[in-house]
């Protein structure tokens, strides 16, 4: 069973990417939807397998780790695989109705979408440093292609900016890989982790780790390296923005987190950890503030991503030089934050797309009075906002709870302020939009009603992010395999 | 009767509340005013006929207990009578404007007044007291004139202050007594370390209602501006509620408090004489009467003071105070009602009426064979100096005599003002009836009403003959001095 699940996971997206390259948009849509269902089942199946039997390593080509490439199929990885399936499913389905079939280049959405999915799965499962590099590049180029699909000057400028940033980040990562390989002669993360633990000091490899994290931070748009993200996410088509914000930035973060958790304790330093944390904190605060200042709806959401990404980097200080129980708390908190942000942000972008579709403008003020006519998309937006604000019972809340506990237990109380302030600031920008929709204006009184399915999808995502809080325990239970050595 | 009494007890309080339902529909509103005279009747029956009885209402507030006992009976009777005759008067007096509103407030005030008399648990006593106070506001400001509003404002301000003082006092004493019954309070207060504070609070709180000097400011403002029947009940009945409050809560007979006694006696004298002095300067009949009320209440305060100072005498004294209250209530009610009467055109009729109007007044002054004489004699009887040992004791007879003179002077002033100010013409039947009933009650009915039992035996006729001079000389003195003054004024 497992091999077929793995096949489904790794190769069907690739196969579908090739398949959907040929037909026109409408047929591609049908094919994609079939594939989506299959993928979803596969992801769920794998998740259940791992939940039951625990994680395992999967050697590709039959070659074991240092020589060949092994995939690490553990709780965390499959959780992210499932998350990807859910979000990609939603975005793909949404895009089928959202994108206009008349525009010729939209047909290329499908293959890019599938390649992206494949790349993401590859990254979640990857345990080989170089393989991760290729996966990252795959994702980056897909994303750039998707952003450029919007087709206008702004989109191209954003795409170029994005591409350059992504390439720079990847190169930095590769440079780090080069140094690490030079030091240890191995590319397998697990192998290196074992070597590192042998009590020697490896200053050169430390530089390598630093460069890798720097590059990945650039790709994740950590403040102050975030300049490329808002234009790219803000200008792309809504389903694309959703995919990018929900999943793509998480891929590079995921790699950074795995590196840090495997090697950080030995190769990293307190200063580095705190510096990354401070950057994250600044991202939270300034990102939220910038989001509050934006006049265009999707820009608000995009800057919100910058802010939310900031939270993720609190992982670094909270797992360095602290007891294992705190590490555990921080890991769980960050993982939940990733999941809930992915769901919420996808919901938010899709809902924002619907809103823009119905009011015909992307300005925040244009939303005046829309609460009367489009409560559904607005409601999804608000529910997603609840999760971003970290209010209960959302996943964002449980994540915040764990992080608060972790920072308290680690004695690094200064992150408490960041977490709480960040929540308040995010409330400020979410409610700004909400508020705009409540203004009773005499102006526009007729709004376009998007098809039901477009409205339902963000709602489902938002509800999932909201209810994640209630099921955090079982989700975390499956996830808790990852950071111990599963086998 | 014993079996009926508890039901009657309940009925006498609940009936007024029931009457409120009449305000709900137009037909009821039309009939409403005709019910006013009848509403206090169950209470009257209760006071006249029922033996001591009680009614437990465990579901009420903190557990209710209503009862009729010796002291309460007297108050019940005077209250019910005054309300009843005033109600009768009101039937004729009321105008169309805001009639229903008046009736509602009348009924509520009545309910409060009757209720507070029978209530024997703290919560319901205080409830009814508050109800009476606040509903009374409706009666005071009913006319809606500038004066009425001003009077109402002051009434309300002082009433609220008084309520709060009472609340504080009750809270403290209830906490000490750890009981919800009024009857447990005096003992607890007497034993308390904070006795003086509690006594002060209660004295002041009820003193507002009783027109205690310095807390009386509202009274001469509010009593005159209210519609006449309302003035009658304010002065005749409601003012006694404060008195009753003292009697029920202060530690009479438990402990002697000479300091408080002296102070009260002094205040009483101040009220009796000062009230009279101010009253003489008034130009409106009702204002004169209002000051007369202060003055009369001063005398009662004096007795209360004595009772406070001398624990042994307290029982008797309080009975006499109740008797005095009975007398004063009926007389003052009648006097107030008479202010609204138009005097007949014919001279003979006018004189006759004038004489009848004067009768309760003279009774107040202590004319022999009137209710006043009985009350005054009883008062003299118990306030004999040898029984008392506090500082003011030896002055008591002098104070009483001075009070009598002052009273007479005020009555003369009232008669004068009334004669000048009253309209000429015919009166509605109900006005006649109401006033006649009040006169009847004051002059005749007084003698058959149930007096407090501790009052010495009714060998009054004999004593009255004996003490006639003692009663009359202050009156004559007053008349004489009034005549001199009158002459002086006329010459000028």
């Amino acid at each position, binding site marked *: 069973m497992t091999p077929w699940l793995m096949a489904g996971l790794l190769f069907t997206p690739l196969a579908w990417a090739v398949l959907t390259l040929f037909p026109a948009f409408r047929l591609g849509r049908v094919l994609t939807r079939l594939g989506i269902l299959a993928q979803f089942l596969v992801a769920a199946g794998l998740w259940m397998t791992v939940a039951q039997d625990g994680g395992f390593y999967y050697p590709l080509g039959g070659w074991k780790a240092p020589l060949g490439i092994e995939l690490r199929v553990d709780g965390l990885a499959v959780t992210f695989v499932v998350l990807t399936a859910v979000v990609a499913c939603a975005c793909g389905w949404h895009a089928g109705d959202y994108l206009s079939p008349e525009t010729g280049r939209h047909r290329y959405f499908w293959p890019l979408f599938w390649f992206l999915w494949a790349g993401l799965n590859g990254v979640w499962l990857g345990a080989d440093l170089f393989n991760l590099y290729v996966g990252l590049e795959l994702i980056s180029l897909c994303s750039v292609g998707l952003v450029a699909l919007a087709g206008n000057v702004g989109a191209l400028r954003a795409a170029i900016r994005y591409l350059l940033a992504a390439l720079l980040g990847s190169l930095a990562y590769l440079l780090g890989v080069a140094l690490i390989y030079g030091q240890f002669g191995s590319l397998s993360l697990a192998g290196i982790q074992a070597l590192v633990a042998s009590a020697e000091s490896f200053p050169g490899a430390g530089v390598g780790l630093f460069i890798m994290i720097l590059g990945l931070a650039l790709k994740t748009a950590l403040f102050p390296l975030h300049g490329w993200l808002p234009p790219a996410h803000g200008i792309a088509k809504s389903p694309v923005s959703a995919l990018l914000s929900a999943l793509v930035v998480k891929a590079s973060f995921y790699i950074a987190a795995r590196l840090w958790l495997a090697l950080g304790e030995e190769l990293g330093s307190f200063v580095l950890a705190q510096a990354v944390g401070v950057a994250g904190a600044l991202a939270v605060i300034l990102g939220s503030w910038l989001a509050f200042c934006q006049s265009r709806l999707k820009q608000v959401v995009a800057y919100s991503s910058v802010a939310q990404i900031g939270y993720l980097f609190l992982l670094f200080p909270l797992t360095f030089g602290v007891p294992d129980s705190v590490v555990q708390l921080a890991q769980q908190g960050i993982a939940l934050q990733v999941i809930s942000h992915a769901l919420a942000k996808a919901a938010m972008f899709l809902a924002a797309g619907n809103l823009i579709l119905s009011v015909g403008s992307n300005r925040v003020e244009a939303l005046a*009075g829309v*609460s*009367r006519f489009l*409560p559904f998309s607005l*409601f999804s937006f*608000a529910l997603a906002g*609840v999760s971003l*604000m970290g*209010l*209960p*019972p959302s996943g964002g*809340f*449980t994540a915040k*709870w*764990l992080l*608060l*506990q972790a920072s*308290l*237990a680690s004695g690094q109380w200064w992150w*408490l302020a960041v977490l*709480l302030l960040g929540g*308040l600031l995010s*409330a400020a920008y979410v*409610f700004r939009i*909400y*508020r705009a929709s*409540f203004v*009773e204006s005499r102006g526009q009184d007729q709004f376009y009603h998007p098809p039901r399915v477009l409205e339902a999808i963000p709602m489902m995502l938002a509800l999932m992010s909201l209810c994640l*809080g*209630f099921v*955090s*325990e079982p989700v*975390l239970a499956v996830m808790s395999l990852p950071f111990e050595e599963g086998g | 009767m014993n079996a009926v009494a508890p039901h009657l007890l309940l009925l006498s309080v609940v009936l007024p509340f029931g009457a409120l339902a009449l305000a709900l529909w137009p037909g009821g509103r039309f009939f409403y005013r005709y019910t006013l005279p009848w509403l206090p009747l169950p209470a009257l029956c209760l006071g006249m006929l029922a033996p001591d009885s009680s009614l437990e209402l*465990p579901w*009420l*507030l*903190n*557990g*209710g207990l209503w009862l009729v006992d010796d002291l309460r009976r007297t108050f019940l009777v005077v209250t019910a009578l005054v309300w009843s005759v005033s109600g009768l008067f009101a039937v004729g007096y009321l105008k169309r404007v805001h009639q229903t*509103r008046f009736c509602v407030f009348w009924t509520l005030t009545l309910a409060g007044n009757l209720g507070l008399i029978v209530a024997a648990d703290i*919560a*319901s006593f*205080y409830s009814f007291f*508050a109800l009476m106070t*606040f509903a009374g506001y409706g009666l005071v*400001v009913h006319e*809606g004139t500038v004066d009425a*509003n001003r009077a*109402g404002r002051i009434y*309300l301000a002082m009433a*609220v*202050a008084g*309520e*709060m003082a009472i*609340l*504080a006092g009750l*809270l*403290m004493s*209830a*906490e000490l007594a750890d009981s919800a019954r009024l009857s447990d309070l005096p003992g607890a207060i007497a034993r308390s370390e904070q006795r003086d504070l509690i006594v002060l609070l209660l004295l002041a709180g009820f003193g507002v209602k009783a027109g205690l000097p310095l807390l009386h400011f509202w009274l001469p403002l509010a009593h005159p501006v209210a519609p006449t029947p309302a003035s009658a009940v304010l002065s005749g009945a409601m003012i006694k509620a404060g008195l009753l409050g003292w009697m029920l809560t202060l530690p009479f007979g438990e402990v002697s408090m000479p300091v408080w006694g002296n102070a009260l006696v002094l205040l009483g004298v101040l009220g009796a004489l000062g009230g009279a002095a101010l009253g003489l300067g008034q130009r409106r009949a009702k204002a004169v009467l209002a000051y007369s009320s202060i003055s009369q209440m001063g005398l009662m305060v004096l007795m209360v003071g004595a009772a406070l100072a001398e624990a042994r005498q307290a029982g008797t004294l309080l009975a006499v105070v109740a008797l005095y209250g009975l007398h004063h209530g009926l007389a003052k009610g009648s006097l107030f009602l008479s202010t609204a009467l138009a005097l007949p055109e014919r001279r003979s009729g006018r004189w006759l009426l004038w004489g009848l109007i004067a009768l309760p007044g003279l009774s107040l002054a202590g004319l022999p064979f009137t209710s006043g004489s009985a009350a005054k004699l009883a008062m003299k009887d118990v306030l004999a100096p040898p029984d008392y040992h506090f500082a003011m004791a030896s002055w008591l007879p002098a104070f009483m005599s001075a009070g009598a003179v002052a009273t007479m002077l005020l009555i003369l002033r009232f008669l004068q003002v009334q004669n000048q100010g009253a309209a000429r013409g015919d009166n509605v039947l109900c006005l006649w009836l109401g006033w006649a009933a009040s006169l009847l009650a004051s002059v005749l009915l007084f003698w058959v009403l149930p007096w407090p039992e501790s009052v010495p035996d009714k060998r009054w006729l004999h004593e009255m003959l004996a003490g006639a001079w003692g009663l009359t000389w202050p009156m004559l003195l007053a008349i004489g001095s009034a005549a001199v003054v009158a002459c002086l004024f006329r010459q000028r």
Partner: protein
Amino acid sequence: MASGALLPVFALMTSLLASLIIFTLPEDRGRVRTLVNIGAALIKLALVAVMIRGVAIGQEYLLAFDMLPGVEFVLRADALAMLFAGLSALLWLLTTIYAIGYLEASPNRSRFFGFFSLCVASTMGIALAGNLFTFFIFYEMLTLSTYPLVVHRGTPKALRAGRNYLIYTLTGGAVLLLGIVCLHGLVGDLRFQEGGHFAGAGPELRGALPWVFFLLVSGLGVKAALVPLHGWLPQAMVAPAPVSALLHAVAVVKAGAFGIVRVVFEVFGLESAQSMGLLSVLVVVASVTILYGSAMALYQVDLKRRLAFSTISQVSYIVLGLCLFGPVGAAGGLVHLVNQGIMKITLFFCAGNYAETLGAHRIDELDGAGKRMPGTSVAFTIAAFGMIGAPPLAGFITKWMLGIGALAEGMDWVVGVLILSSVLNAAYFLPILHRLWFRERTTPWPKEYRWGRLETSVWLFWPPLMTAVMTMAIGVFAAMPFSPLAWVILIVSREVAL
């Protein structure tokens, strides 16, 4: 026992489901909406009644599962919960009826009633929450679901009020969260438990616990509008009358007060809170709030604004009661939870009636309203007297218990606060009553509507009268079984197991 676990969930779900159904209903399906609204309210009332009966005979309703490792989600119906749940279920019904009439023919009703039900669901959750974590979940849910109600009108003023509301409550929520997390960090997950948890706390805890207490109470104090955290409340009165009614009487303000009750009673425990000297501070804050609210109310010319300041003052009675250490004072505070709710909702209903029927918003526009709207004015009068604390109305019971409680613990000055506050209450309520009943109307009403025979719409007419009757009944029948006072005494006897 299955039904034991499910009843609280059902009670929560009725309004949650109602809200979801209403959200999906189109604007013009008024009849269905009304049916759903009232049906859900009735069902909920019935469920709560069943639970109250069960709790009275000592039955346990409990639902618990792990939401996070070591963090439980607990719904539990205990006596204290039922006090609040009963209040909100009852008043929800009335407010719904009222709101239906109030919003007749105004736009956005689906939205309004959806959030309205959501708000009640959160309130129910707050009542039933079995630990601080669960409490917080519903506490924040309440914040969110009331925001749309506050800004419902969409006017700049409403939006501004909404913004301030959010700033205050979300900040408060954050502080509360911090407190909860700190507590969790210190001692782990704590269910609410009669008598509290820290009876035998060691010195190492005693150092930290006061800070935690401070965080918790200042977080909750925002919603409870303790001075100086009260700024949002007077502004929030721009919301439609039923919302203000709900906000002030049941939901938001009470949630804060109820939270403080839970923290003092069932987390810290009355005795340990006292022995740590925490309550002495709180009692001062509460007293200041009481006096400040009353004093500020004097200066308001807008009726609802005056009522809002009155709320600030009145809600602190609850807190005051807790801090009196003794069972009687505690009972007084708790019973005020119900009493203030019923009285204040009456007042807001009436204020809404005046605004809706006569167009009168300011106090000086109310001259002679008693003649035009006797029913409403009677209700208003009763409730106002209740607020003043005039016996035998609901407010008196509170003040009496508080006074006795304070004296029993030797805090005589609290009686002074009570008295002073009552005087102030009288000072700002009685002039209104005077205007209602004794002023003559000379000018036409600002904006009058007529509804045929009754003085106002049927939907608007009965709710205030019913709550006014309740105001009386609570006071007069205080000694009856199942009266709020009796129930509170049951709670206190369980809490303070002396």
